[in-house]
């Protein structure tokens, strides 16, 4: 892996700077190099964040919020105009279909960095109940925040609200940041162009590659000690660093859209259908968000069909479509598990039917689903966070939460490094971050992948087992508590602690 990276840089490097030793021997020659003639005008930064999406911005906010990192000089590179001009959100517009389910763990970190108050000024929907069931009619599970001694199970927030809140948070902070409204083209690991001691000739240039030069598509360049790739699942940083990935496509697509009910929805609903799950998440007012996973052909049909028909299909899928409602009496009353019931059941824990959808209020968007994991998150001067390091099945709404986890972990590791005077591009320090996050991310990915597999194969007996498992989960309180606290991002190790 290292060799790969080095080769990559070696190539780019050779184009502009003939030789490392050459630079060491005479600084004057540097200025004759076309690539370096403008060096004095190129900005030098401690950190260059490539990608100002939710994860990149959360990372910047986290840096701005900690005393040890708030004085860092940071560049953010993203062509999204919202970063400079702000995100305009009109309250009377219906919610955008791109939403995230943020976990209590994410909420508390957002509070810590001072970003949650901006979310609360915008539309968001806390939920304290969750119902999961499947089409076989054999079992269902209801989670209640109370079971995990929590106020809420999570909060559904539009991605644009998350982004604008993080922007507001960053703007209100006393933080040196420069936004480059462009995109990353290439990276060069280069020697710095400043004066080189004339006494030093003949010695190898250990550690002189301590800066990375970033060339952007608009022709501008900058230098940074550390490049943070927060540029999403098709990460250019990952590609340029030569970091390989492992993963697969699920040959499933997700359709997302916003719908409206006659009443307010306060529960997160998820039903497993033969081809994948459909989720109905509250997004505030009388609106809900739909994430419906299907095979690509079905997905395409559902994207193209007229809106009324789509709504009919949605209501069908969330009610009697594909199979009956689960009967709680099946296992619960008199069945083999009846003895478990006594201490948990409350009236609110009975199976409910989700509120009917009355109207489609947004476009339908379609995304292919895949699982991808970068083999490394860190190399010298380069580190990956968020979707650039991993994408997961959106099943449990963990995707962006894992990314936020990365962002906060990396900023903490950097703060600890700064405390002891570490060079922030140093790979040993970055590897600490990698070790910490790989463990958490892989555990979650394995669980989600396992879930996905279990629910995309339609074997009768397996479904019965699954239904039974749901049923047990429904009636064993401590077990449920374990599931919830893991799904809400509080627990480090799987599964039922």
């Amino acid at each position, binding site marked *: 892996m290292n060799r790969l990276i080095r080769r990559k840089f070696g190539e780019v490097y050779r184009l502009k700077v003939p030789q490392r030793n050459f630079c060491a021997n005479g600084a004057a020659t540097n200025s004759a190099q076309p690539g370096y003639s403008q060096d004095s005008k190129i900005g030098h930064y401690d950190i260059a964040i490539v990608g100002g999406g939710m994860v990149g911005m959360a990372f910047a906010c986290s840096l701005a919020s900690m*005393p*040890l990192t708030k*004085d860092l000089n940071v560049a953010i590179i993203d062509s999204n105009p919202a970063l400079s001009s702000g995100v305009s959100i009109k309250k009377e517009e219906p919610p955008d279909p791109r939403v995230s389910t943020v976990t209590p763990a994410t909420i508390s970190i957002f509070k810590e960095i001072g970003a949650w108050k901006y979310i609360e000024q915008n539309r968001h929907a806390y939920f304290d109940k969750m119902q999961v069931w499947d089409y076989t009619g054999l079992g269902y599970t209801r989670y209640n925040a109370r079971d995990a001694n929590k106020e809420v199970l999570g909060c559904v927030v539009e991605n644009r609200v998350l982004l604008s809140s993080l922007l507001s948070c960053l703007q209100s902070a006393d933080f040196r940041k420069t936004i480059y409204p462009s995109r990353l083209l290439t990276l060069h690991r280069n020697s*710095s162009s*400043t004066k080189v001691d004339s006494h030093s000739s003949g010695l190898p*240039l250990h550690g*002189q590659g301590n800066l990375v030069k970033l060339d952007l598509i608009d022709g501008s360049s900058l230098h940074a000690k550390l490049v943070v790739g927060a540029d999403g699942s098709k990460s250019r940083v990952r590609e340029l660093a030569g970091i390989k990935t492992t993963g697969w496509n699920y040959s499933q697509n997700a359709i997302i859209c916003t719908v409206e009910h006659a009443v307010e929805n306060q529960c997160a609903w998820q039903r497993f259908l033969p081809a994948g799950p459909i989720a109905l998440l509250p997004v505030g007012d009388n609106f809900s968000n739909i994430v419906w996973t299907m095979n690509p052909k079905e997905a395409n049909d559902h994207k193209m069909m007229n809106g009324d028909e789509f709504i009919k299909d949605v209501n069908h899928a969330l009610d009697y479509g594909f199979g009956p409602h689960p009967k709680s009496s099946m296992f619960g009353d008199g069945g083999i598990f009846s003895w478990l019931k006594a201490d948990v059941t409350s009236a609110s824990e009975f199976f409910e039917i989700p509120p009917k959808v009355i109207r489609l209020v947004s476009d339908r968007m379609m995304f292919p689903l895949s699982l991808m994991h970068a083999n490394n998150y860190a190399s010298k001067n380069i580190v990956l966070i968020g979707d650039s390091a991993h994408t997961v099945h959106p099943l449990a709404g963990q995707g962006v939460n894992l990314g936020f986890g990365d962002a906060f972990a990396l900023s903490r590791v950097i703060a600890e490094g700064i405390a*002891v*005077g570490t*060079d922030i591009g140093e790979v040993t320090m970055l590897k600490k971050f990698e070790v910490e996050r790989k463990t958490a991310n892989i555990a979650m990915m394995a669980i989600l992948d396992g879930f996905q597999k279990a629910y995309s194969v339609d074997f009768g007996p397996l479904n019965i087992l699954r239904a039974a498992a749901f049923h047990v989960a429904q009636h064993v309180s401590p077990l449920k508590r374990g599931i919830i606290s893991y799904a809400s991002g509080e627990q480090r190790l799987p599964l039922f602690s």
Partner: protein
Amino acid sequence: MAFKLPNQLRALYTATNYHHHHRILSPLAGASQSFVFSLRRLFADVPPLSDPSSAPPPLYPHSTKTSLAPSSLNQYELAKFAAIAETWWDSEGPFKPLHALNPTRLAFIRSTLCRHFRRDSYSAKPFEGLKFVDVGCGGGILSEPLARMGATVTGVDAVEKNIKIARLHAVWPFTNLSPIWIPQLQRLNIVAQQLLVEEQRTFDAVIALEVIEHVAEPAEFCKSLATLTVPGGATVISTINRSIRAYATAIIAAEYLLHWLPKGTHQWSSFLTPEELVLILQRASISVQEMAGFAYNPLTGRWSLSDDISVNFIAFGTKNSQ
């Protein structure tokens, strides 16, 4: 984090103020013998003799060198460092242990010096405005982080090649780090005067990590460190203990098994025990305030601070201000 002087040591340290050497030494394991041994080394101008009970096992390749005169012993030590100077910044090379140890020992320095100089421990550059000298800086593994933490750092070393490496590596972006070559640095008292007279410099903190075990006259060396320190200033020294465990851990493990260090990097007989270090610093008007050990976890490959000073230890002292 509290890096308190172990009780034993505190007893020793407070007791030495009252000159009751015998009483306080008795509880120390094998104290009488090692004390005699150390007295010979510290306070007589003769090289340490091989003591059958505490001398390194025959395995040790350089035990014969102890018969050399101090100055040549130094030349020998310095030649060893010159030979591997190119590899200072290779974190997987011969200096790997220093790289691995760096965050841990810097955490000790940050914690003790922030308290001593009443600096904000949440600051990214808590040492801004303070002048430090890193004695025996080598390639600058310690000097650079100290400079990043805001100190104006002068790095000095007896090996010219080391200083070249340090300069080269520190070219950018440091404006507050200057490595200086001082030949025969073991005569630091002369150097100190030179620095004092010519450049009118003393330092708020004088730091010499993993150097004292390589010098011929530790007591003289400590006196020189004291001369460089402003009254009320701080001195930080780390070294390796002269215990059987240290021998086993540091020499056998690091030099022979793990091949971290080139064979012969350490001369076991030149190691000081924490008690000896406290004593010689005391004589140089430096009171040791805190001491900690370094513990290595082979599973994580990381070091941490601990109470166990039986192998590697670090001491923070203040110069008495009379």
